[in-house]
């Protein structure tokens, strides 16, 4: 008996999409079969369609970011499972512009495979298609991990920047170049003090001793193999900040766009408190916090934890961040 308010893991996804489409009929349209969401009113200046997607359970990512100035389409898979290629293929065909379609893909095997199969089908149909792969999670930056760093929180930042760039009429090559630059300048790190509840079993996905945090947890509850005492939040945040900045090689005076992200069960009070410590840690290192988003935007069901992300920025990127966008989970 799952404690989620849903009849089954599949109903969790399907009812959510139906309700989402009802609640945001002014912004998005749902195509239930094969399963994707498109923007009602993308900017007419766009020549490239922006498509993302991935397993469900990370809401508001990605469907919440479908809208003007953001994504043209999102393909939600089952809980923690990538969408199948037909979803990606159909969504891409629906929103491809004269300049083709760009896939924003988090670096997971399943996502890569399904987006890759869809890309082959699109190219077969004569639709130009390229991909930006997000791999920001420093916890998976290890020689033991052949697949490379996972894609996590910075995906939200990337989608915003690419959306604003697409609105300027940028072509596919320019968007790929921008996306790769943003990805290269982005890192994240996540911790959890309690696992999410598995919708399949109704039990916590893993157990942690009280007072311990899993340091470097993944957004599907992948354990890191590293626990540490929670201790002082300020200390934890300072250590996490150090890893981000170290991995990015950020020098004093450089500027970042930051994301303080809740993983599901973390309260707004905790996130803002964490931000207080994060801002102090960045200031201590001489890094300029140019913009910040505090909220639960890339979640892991009801996990009790948070992630910190930093993306190196400049005047151009910050202007893209500030550009107007109207999506269910983003209004500015």
């Amino acid at each position: 008996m799952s404690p989620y308010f849903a009849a089954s893991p599949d109903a969790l996804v399907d009812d959510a999409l139906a309700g989402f489409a009802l609640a945001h009929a002014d912004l998005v349209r749902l195509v239930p079969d094969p399963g994707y969401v498109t923007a009602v009113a993308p900017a007419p200046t766009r020549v490239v369609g922006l498509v993302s997607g991935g397993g469900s359970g990370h809401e508001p990512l990605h469907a919440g970011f479908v809208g003007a100035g953001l994504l043209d389409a999102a393909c939600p898979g089952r809980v923690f499972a990538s969408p199948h290629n037909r979803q990606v293929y159909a969504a891409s065909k629906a929103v491809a512009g004269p300049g083709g379609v760009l896939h924003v893909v988090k670096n997971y095997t399943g996502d890569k495979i399904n987006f890759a199969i869809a890309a082959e089908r699109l190219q077969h149909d004569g639709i130009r298609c390229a991909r930006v792969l997000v791999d920001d999670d420093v916890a998976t930056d290890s020689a033991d991990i052949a697949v490379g760093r996972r894609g996590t929180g910075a995906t939200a930042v990337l989608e915003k920047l690419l959306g604003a760039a697409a609105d300027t009429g940028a072509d596919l090559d320019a968007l790929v170049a921008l996306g790769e630059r943003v990805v290269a300048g982005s890192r994240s790190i996540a911790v959890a003090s309690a696992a999410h509840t598995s919708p399949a079993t109704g039990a916590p996905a893993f157990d942690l001793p009280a007072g311990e945090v899993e340091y470097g947890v993944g957004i599907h509850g992948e354990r890191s193999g590293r626990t540490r005492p929670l201790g002082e939040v300020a200390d934890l945040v300072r250590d996490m900040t150090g890893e981000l900045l170290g991995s990015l090689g950020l020098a004093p005076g450089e500027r970042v766009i930051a994301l303080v992200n809740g993983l599901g069960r973390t309260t707004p009070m905790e996130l803002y408190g964490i931000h207080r410590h994060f801002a102090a840690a960045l200031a201590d290192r001489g890094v300029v916090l140019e913009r910040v988003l505090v909220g639960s935007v890339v979640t892991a069901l009801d996990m009790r934890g948070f992630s910190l992300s930093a993306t190196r920025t400049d005047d151009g990127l910050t202007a893209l961040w500030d550009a107007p966008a109207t999506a269910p989970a983003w209004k500015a």
Partner: protein
Amino acid sequence: MTDTTAATWLRAFATAVLDAEDRLTALDQAAGDGDFGANIAGAVRFTLADLDALAAGAAEDEVISAAASAFLDRVGGTSGPLFGLLFQEFAAATRQAGGFTTAALAAGASAGLAAIQRVGEAEVGDKTLVDALSPAADALSALPDDTPLAEAFAAAARAADEGARSTADVRARRGRASYVGDHAIGVVDPGAVTVGLLFAAGT
């Protein structure tokens, strides 16, 4: 038994997967993200429905194609499309051989392995379904073409199960299990276990 048909095989596989769903979920939870059981169970349910919908006299390769498209076009995750690619190659080999034979099974397994490795880039030892499929494909290739189909399945199942067991000993380097480090040691890979179920279903 020598009367294994594509349909009896696929239905037996579906039953075995549905029976094992909770165990597969637990394995993926111990070393991955916990959705493998749901993904693969969803896939075989689609397959069963598609088999039911198939015309009575459908050729063996059409039967297997139905499974391939159920997996490829309706199931996401990592395992869905990878098994879909494997079924696609079984179907092609069956069409080529003019029937669902031991030779077709062997050729399909090898071609499927190649496709899975092209797309997923996993090597033997990375703790994925490749660790079960690769020895199974080898075992099938070593059999004479006139080996009864059920015997061929049995040989493949033995090799796959042994390969699956070997995944308990290693850290994963591919797939979601690669992130969990030593937590995955001692846990067999659910994808590899499922390859064992796939071949055992033909015996």
